[in-house]
């Protein structure tokens, strides 16, 4: 049965896979090939051309790698393989594809910011595949009456059809540092706080952006991080260091701001 489907995919196709209609982005473009250049070299080699990303029905970011075997001893071959979004296409270049189209000649492709095109002949018939990514969403500037949903994502999120991964989602547990900021205010690693199970809390350290931990703990309580009061209300430009000026934080009731290194806590 499996060979039957392989046969079908090898010798008959009707344009690009439907899930590409919901492509979110185009990544991993081939380093050297120029747009619309007919690919003739290096002969007999597999090349990873680009990849399309999309959200599957289970909200996982998926990726389709597009490979091409450059004509040489035999005609060219186009191969499409789905891989997890964090796997490089180049590492799967020799694996079998879900779709493989043989007998290809005059193959060229082009990539623009939000579209891709592939042009080729197969069985003397010209094929032109064009893919446009779902309208590019740009994060809006925060403004009066803007909602958090509009700030964080497009109002409608399209999910690619026919794709359901079984990967389970697990948010980051409470208490885990999700955004690491050094005492000199440098970001040590990109924030993961969007994946916190129950939101996050900043531990004020006098920086414009302080370190953050996942969880729904309330600031200002005994042995809890202090609450962020800001570094503008004082109305004088200065550097805030927990040991010399704790006005950027506050604590509940009669508790005092104490410093644990550069971070403000309440005791």
């Amino acid at each position, binding site marked *: 049965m499996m060979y039957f489907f392989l046969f079908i995919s090898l010798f008959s196709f009707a344009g690009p896979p439907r899930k590409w*209609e919901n492509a979110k982005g185009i990544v991993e473009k081939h380093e050297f090939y120029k747009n619309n250049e007919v690919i003739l070299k290096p002969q007999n080699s597999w090349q990873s051309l680009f990849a399309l990303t999309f959200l599957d*029905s289970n909200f996982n970011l998926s990726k389709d790698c597009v490979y091409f075997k450059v004509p040489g001893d035999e005609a060219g071959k186009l191969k499409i393989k789905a891989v997890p979004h964090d796997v490089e296409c180049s590492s799967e270049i020799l694996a079998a594809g879900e779709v493989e189209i043989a007998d290809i000649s005059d193959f060229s492709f082009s990539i623009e910011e939000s579209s891709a095109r592939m042009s080729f002949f197969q069985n003397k018939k010209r094929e032109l595949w064009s893919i446009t990514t779902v309208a590019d969403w740009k994060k809006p500037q925060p403004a009066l009456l803007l909602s958090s*949903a509009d700030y964080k994502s497009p109002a409608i999120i399209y999910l690619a059809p026919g794709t359901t991964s079984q990967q389970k989602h697990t948010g980051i547990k409470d208490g885990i540092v999700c955004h690491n900021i050094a005492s000199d205010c440098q970001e040590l690693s990109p924030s993961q706080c969007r994946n916190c199970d129950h939101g996050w809390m900043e531990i004020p350290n006098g920086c414009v952006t302080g370190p953050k931990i996942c969880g729904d703990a309330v600031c200002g309580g005994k042995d809890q991080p202090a609450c962020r009061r800001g570094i503008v*209300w004082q109305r004088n430009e200065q550097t805030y260091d927990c040991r010399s000026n704790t006005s950027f934080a506050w604590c*509940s009731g009669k508790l005092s701001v104490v410093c644990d290194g550069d971070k403000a806590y309440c005791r």
Partner: protein
Amino acid sequence: MLFFRSKQEAQLARVKPDTDDKLFTEIIRAAEPQLLKLWTQGQTFHQGSTQCKEELISDKKVGGSYYNCQPHFWQCFWQGGVTGSKPAIMVELFGQTYEVRANAVFPSIPAYSEFPRFYELLKLSGTGLNLHSGYKVELSVKEIPGFTQTLLLTDTCRDTYLPERIYGYGKRPASGEGFIWDNFGRRIFLDKFYVTNQMVNEWLILNNLADKIITDRSLWPLPASLPVETQKKYCSYFGKRLLSAELFDAATMTPTDFKNPRPLKVVRAQTPWQRDLSKSFLGVARINPDYQLTPLDCQLAQVKGCREKYFTTDSSSWMGMNFALGFFPESLANTIDPASTLKPSSRFLEASSPWHELGVRTSWDGKVSENIVAFRCYEEVEP
């Protein structure tokens, strides 16, 4: 001359896709504005009555905002229960009219009805989507059978942004500036309305506690009455927190100078619509025991003697939050004055009550009592 072509002509000029799957996708994309309008502005479709008692009960006490981003309205519409509306989105494209429909493919929620659902509420934490929840729906096009499109609708109606500026906390201080703070560099979004029984029902169902939901549909638009610890749990589940006192004050005390987010003096307004309470109907009512409430007074602050109404937007504050004074007592987290966790101003108090003033709070034991203590959440989002 291209500039002067009508929209319809321009659409006709576009090349109709030669495959059904591409045509289907184009129709779905073209339906997007109408789809969003149906989802986010349900109130504009809800002109008359509804005939889906398991989802909605039309009630003049309930304002139109209740129907916006409202899954029960979505369900009712697609079930054909909205009077005067055909359950379809008509799309004109390539000189033809196509009928886009939602599909009832999601499991029924027996606590609501046996009918399969046209949506599924999902908890999304950990998906990397930067959303804590969303409504999954499936669409099809009548004229192109065999294709479906799944998508996620987000709740864009729930909260509103608190602009970055210097804010004051509490009543007008006798001297000095009192407690001031700022939210520069922060993205804080506050619920516009109270959390309702309907919203808590959704939360219970997500947590497999459908047997605990409130089934009386007439109570669904009302503020939920929960102990404070449960209020916090509700907010936390959606990555939010119980609204705090300093945020409430920031959202309701109208700044004197919108253009200057760093004022040298932070003024504490006593009401959202008049800086001095004495000039408002609440101030007049304090000195005139015979004061007669007007309909406008009740729109601004629903106090004792006003007609009961929910989901009104007439009391909207300067940044879009409703119910600053009057309406229901409201639970607030308070780390500055831990004992002051209740906004007492409410529809249970006469207009002359001294509790009707911004920044005035009292204590609450956090337990459910006869009078509803409403609550709402806020969310801080990373810039």
